[in-house]
């Protein structure tokens, strides 16, 4: 089983991210010619279908859905090797024809953890305990909160979050020193990337759109250029030499965006739906990024099985 934990700041789009991941699964697993197959677990189906309904109705998840959404489990399989833009995951053969259970945990907000958990006086319980044992951690970086690198010594909008992610990763390092899995795959997801401030892009001297998903090198440079001024402590933990038994895999980066539109009668803005040729509608989102992420999870699962 592949354990994945998602962490993110308040209102960083964790639930929307999970809903879009499910939408990507539904889209890429409903045609006979699709090479992806998935099957949702019974204990997740109620919440995830409810979330999907909201997104497909053009609404962002409501507070009740956010409160109730804590995990999503599914069987995932890739039927045959895939080339093209996703060829970078060259060892797809390992995953071909086999299935794996993917268990995604949304443990909650990082500021909800009790103090002892981060200080190693407590090991955490329930979903936070699952997060400590994860094979991969998805760190959501809310692109609307990214700030440009500046001379100003004032703390940036992500400083507190950066500290919390750093503490979380450090607690994983400490926990794993006692045993458990010896590799952790860090995955950064830039949420709301369509709403990144233009001055942040300008100051970083990068293009407004990230390099193609197949160009892993330029993509990593692009992402770290944006993350360094905002999550320096988190990035530093990943680069530290002394981590005991645990090894961090090379981080991966994905960019999530979903187009919004104003709703009538003064209601808050909603998700714009787009037509797909011969296949109905879907949220107008960066689907290719989500498909690439699913491929990547399949790749990690194959490695974990070895």
């Amino acid at each position, binding site marked *: 089983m592949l354990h994945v934990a998602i962490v993110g700041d308040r209102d960083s789009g964790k639930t929307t991210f999970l809903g879009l991941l499910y939408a990507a*699964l*539904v*889209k890429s*697993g*409903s*045609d*006979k010619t*699709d090479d992806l*197959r*998935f*099957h*949702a*677990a*019974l*204990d997740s*189906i*109620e919440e995830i*279908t*409810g979330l*999907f*309904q909201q997104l*497909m*109705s*053009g609404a962002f998840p409501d507070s009740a859905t956010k409160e109730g959404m804590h995990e999503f489990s599914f*069987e*995932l*399989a890739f039927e045959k090797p895939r080339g093209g833009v996703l060829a970078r995951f060259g060892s797809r053969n390992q995953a071909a024809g086999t*299935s794996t259970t993917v268990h995604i945990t949304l443990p909650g907000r990082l500021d909800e953890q009790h103090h002892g958990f981060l200080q190693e006086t407590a090991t955490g319980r329930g979903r936070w305990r699952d997060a400590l044992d994860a094979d991969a951690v998805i760190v959501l970086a809310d692109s609307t909160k990214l700030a440009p690198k500046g001379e100003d010594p004032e703390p940036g909008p992500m400083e507190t979050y950066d500290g919390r992610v750093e503490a979380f990763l450090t607690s994983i390092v400490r926990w794993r020193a006692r045993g458990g899995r010896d590799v952790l795959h860090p995955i950064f997801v830039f949420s709301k990337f369509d709403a990144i401030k233009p001055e942040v892009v300008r100051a970083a001297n990068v293009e407004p759109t990230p390099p193609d998903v197949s160009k892993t090198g330029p993509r990593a440079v692009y992402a770290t250029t944006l993350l360094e001024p905002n999550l320096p402590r988190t990035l530093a933990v990943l680069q530290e030499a002394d981590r005991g038994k645990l090894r961090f895999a090379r981080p991966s980066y994905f960019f999530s965006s979903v187009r919004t539109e104003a709703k009538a009668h003064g209601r808050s803005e909603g998700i714009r*739906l787009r037509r797909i*040729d*011969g*296949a*109905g*509608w879907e949220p107008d989102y960066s689907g290719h990024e989500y498909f690439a992420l699913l491929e990547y999870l399949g790749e990690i699962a194959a490695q974990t099985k070895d």
Partner: protein
Amino acid sequence: MPCALLGDRASGKTTFLGLLYSAQVKYGTGVHDDFRFHAPMASLNVMSAVYEGMKDARFPSATLKEEITELSFIFGYLRKVTGKLPYYIRQQNWVKPFSTLRFSAYDVSGEDIEEFIESGIASRPLIQQLLKSVVVVVLVDCSKMTTDIDTAPYKKMLRYDSTVAKLLVAFQTYKKQEYDRLKDSGVSPDPPMIYPAFVLSKFDTLRDDVLARLGLHQGFPEDKRARKEYAEALLRVFVPQTLSQIRGGKVAGVSMDKAAYFLSWVRTETQEGMEPVGQPRIVRTGFRPEGGGEPDFSYDEYVNFIEHFRRIANKIPDEVLESEKFQAQSLIRPN
């Protein structure tokens, strides 16, 4: 063989069963004489009332619909070999000329199996029986297929898709649990399988503009493969979660790949230039040598549906026997 019939409110479940009964009556009395059916008294009472109403041009009443929670038919298919035997020999009890199959349709909604979805335990006998279904018939109401995403039918279809996807996951989970239980008890069962059958109900109400926007032509194709592609093109748009769970069943250990697709429509009276007032009336066929006064409906599709079960009947008995064998073992096992 229990068969679950899933359908949204007002999706045409009772009409479907009424037309199926009508097709059974006609097909079972045809000159070929290779299909028989029998219904228990309770089911027969309800179905004959529905049938009578339809022959009188009326759709099933709400009162009748409420009476239906479980309906059973026993289908008998003449075995190929025995069909060639002389009539006298065929009539002998020891020949067993018909392979039989119990078609039990349960009227279920998402709420009915909520307990199983929430707790993983099916305590109600009806739900246990339902979850044992080997065939799952899903009615998809074509009158709710719309390309206008801000309408109530669109949202209803979204909700229905979620409900059916949930039910399919529940069926799959139950089947896998039962399979594992059989294996643990020393029985070697075949890998579990569910045969989904989709019925596109009220197909005559599917709007041309919907088809045009989806790039589909009018009229359902004849060719088997083209039928499947056509139906799946519609289902991919309107029930994508359901389709994805059927496709993904195999990776969770229960194959659901052998889906079949059928149409259902019944012609209603229309008066040119006038809006129908009140409940529409069913058009009935004229009298001919092969019968008449029947509802004018997609009879051939219903015959295909009945024949579809003939193919399944050839594969199912082993699984049923294994299950029964296991239950018998459980009964004699001391506590």
